[in-house]
C-alpha cells in the first residue's frame, strides 16, 4: 500500500506531539489513527500543564515535567503562528487544594522530600487556610490549605489536539484515519504496519496509549500499561471566579468549570458512575461553596494510560532498530517536551536530557508490578 519514513501509531496528544515534532525536524511522517469512538485519553483530558507533585518517586520525572512546562510558551506560540489557533495556555501558578490538615501535611512532606533530592531546586509554597483565602477568595471555610506551585498552568487540551493536527498536516504530514493497527512486523529493512500488504515504514513510533501494551512486543518492546479511569464533570459557563488552575477544579478559557480528580482502576470501561459523580460534586462544593447552584452539563469518563509506577516510558528497541515506544499519562504537560525535545531524539539525534535512560522499560523488570 503506502510507504513512509516514520509511522506514528496513535493520533492522540502523545502521537500528534511526536508526529508534529518529527515533521518539524524534516522527517516524512504518517500517523495511523483510530475512528470516531476509540478510547481517547486526549478527549477526556483535564487540561493541566502541571509540575507540582510529579516525580515524587522519580526526580528525573520532575525534571522532565519542569522542562516541558518551561518549553510550553514557545510551543504554544509556534502552534498559534502556524495554525492561528490559541490553545489557551495560561501558566499563572497553580494550587493543589487540601481539604484537611492531614492532606496538607502529607503533600508538604512529599514535596520537601522531592526538593531535597533535587538539591533544593524545586519551588513550591505551603499555604494555610488564611493565606490561601487571600489568593482564592472563593475557597470554602473548611479547607485546610493548599500547595502553590509557581510553574503550574493549564491549556485547552481539545484545541491543542486540533492545533497539533492542523500544524502537522500543514507541514505535509499525513494522517490515515479509521485505521486500527493490530499488527506490526519487522521486515528485512523497516516495518510493515497493519496486516499484509499493509504500509511500509522505515521507522515506527508506538504512541497508541493502551494499545501499546499489545503492539510493543511485536517490535521487541514492553509497554506494561493499564487503564485508570478518571471522571470529569463539566459545568455550564459562568463568570470568571477562578483565575488559577487547581489540581481539582479549573475554569476554562470559555468560562466552563471542570471538576475532576477521581482515579479508579476499572479496566476498559470509560463510563461514568453516579456514586463517583456525587462524591466529586460534594468535594467541589466543599472547595468552592459558591459552585453549589451551578449546573453540570456533561460528565466524562476517560481512561488514563498508566505504567506500573505512573511515569512515562520512552524506549528504543534493541532487537528491532528503528522502533520507539512513547507512553505517558500527562499528554498535555509533556506535549512541549515530546514535540520539541523527544521527537528530535527519535529522529536520530542525541538524547535531549542526560537522564532519558531513566524512562526505559527495563525499570519494570525488577519491579513486582511488571
Amino acid at each position: 500500500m503506502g510507504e513512509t519514513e516514520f509511522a506514528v501509531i496513535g493520533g492522540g496528544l502523545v502521537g500528534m506531539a511526536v508526529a508534529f515534532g518529527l515533521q518539524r525536524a524534516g522527517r516524512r511522517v504518517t500517523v495511523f489513527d483510530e475512528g470516531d469512538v476509540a478510547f481517547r485519553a486526549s478527549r477526556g483530558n483535564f487540561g493541566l500543564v502541571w509540575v507540582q507533585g510529579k516525580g515524587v518517586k522519580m526526580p528525573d520525572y520532575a525534571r522532565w515535567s519542569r522542562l516541558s512546562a518551561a518549553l510550553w510558551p514557545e510551543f504554544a506560540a509556534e502552534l498559534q503562528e502556524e495554525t492561528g489557533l490559541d490553545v489557551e495556555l495560561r501558566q499563572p501558578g497553580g494550587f493543589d487544594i487540601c481539604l484537611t490538615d492531614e492532606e496538607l501535611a502529607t503533600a508538604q512532606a512529599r514535596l520537601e522530600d522531592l526538593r531535597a533530592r533535587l538539591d533544593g531546586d524545586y519551588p513550591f509554597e505551603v499555604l494555610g487556610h488564611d493565606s490561601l483565602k487571600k489568593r482564592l477568595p472563593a475557597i470554602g471555610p473548611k479547607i485546610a490549605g493548599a500547595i502553590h506551585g509557581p510553574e503550574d498552568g493549564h491549556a485547552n487540551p481539545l484545541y491543542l489536539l486540533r492545533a497539533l493536527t492542523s500544524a502537522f498536516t500543514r507541514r505535509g504530514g499525513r494522517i490515515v484515519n479509521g485505521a486500527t493497527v493490530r499488527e506490526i512486523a519487522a521486515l528485512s529493512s523497516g516495518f510493515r504496519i497493519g496486516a499484509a500488504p499493509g504500509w511500509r515504514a522505515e521507522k515506527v513510533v508506538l504512541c497508541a496509549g493502551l494499545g501499546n501494551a499489545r503492539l510493543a512486543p511485536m517490535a521487541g518492546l514492553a509497554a506494561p500499561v493499564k487503564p485508570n479511569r478518571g471522571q470529569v464533570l463539566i459545568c455550564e459557563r459562568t463568570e470568571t471566579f477562578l483565575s488559577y488552575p487547581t489540581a481539582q477544579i479549573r475554569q476554562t478559557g470559555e468560562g466552563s468549570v471542570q471538576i475532576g480528580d477521581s482515579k479508579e482502576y476499572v479496566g476498559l470501561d470509560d463510563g461514568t458512575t453516579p456514586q463517583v459523580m456525587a462524591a466529586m460534586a460534594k468535594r467541589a462544593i466543599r472547595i468552592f461553596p459558591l459552585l453549589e447552584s451551578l449546573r453540570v452539563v456533561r460528565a466524562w469518563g476517560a481512561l488514563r494510560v498508566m505504567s506500573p509506577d505512573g511515569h512515562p516510558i520512552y524506549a528504543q528497541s534493541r532487537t528491532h532498530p528503528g522502533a520507539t515506544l512513547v507512553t505517558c499519562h500527562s499528554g498535555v504537560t509533556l506535549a512541549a517536551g515530546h514535540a520539541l525535545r523527544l521527537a528530535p531524539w527519535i529522529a536520530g539525534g542525541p538524547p535531549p536530557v542526560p537522564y532519558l535512560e531513566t524512562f526505559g522499560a527495563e525499570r519494570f523488570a525488577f519491579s513486582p508490578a511488571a
Partner: protein
Amino acid sequence: MPNASLFRRLPDPKRRTVAITFEDRTVQAREGDSVAAAMLAAGMVTARRTPVGGAHRGPYCMMGVCFDCLVEIDGTPNRQACMVEVREGMRVRPMTGAPGLGKAPAHD
C-alpha cells in the same frame, strides 16, 4: 422590541390572570402559562444574549429541548422559560452571557 400583536389570546374564563415582571415591565400572564408563553403573549421574542457570541435568542422548541429560552427567574440564572409555570409576582430577567455565581438556588 415588544410587539403586542404577535399572538392573540383565546378567552378562558377558568384561568386567572397572573402578574409577573419581565425586567422592569409588568406583564399580565395567565395561570398555567409557562414563562416563555407569557413573554411571547406580551410580544417579547427575545429571552437572552448568548455567552458564546452575544447573539439574541428566544424560545424555539417550547418543550424543554433547545435551551434557547434561558432566563433568570427569581434570582436563579439559566432556567428554561418554557418549563417553568408563572407565579404571581415572579421576577424574570433575560440572561446576558454566562450566569454569575453565588446566587441562592430557588425552585418552585
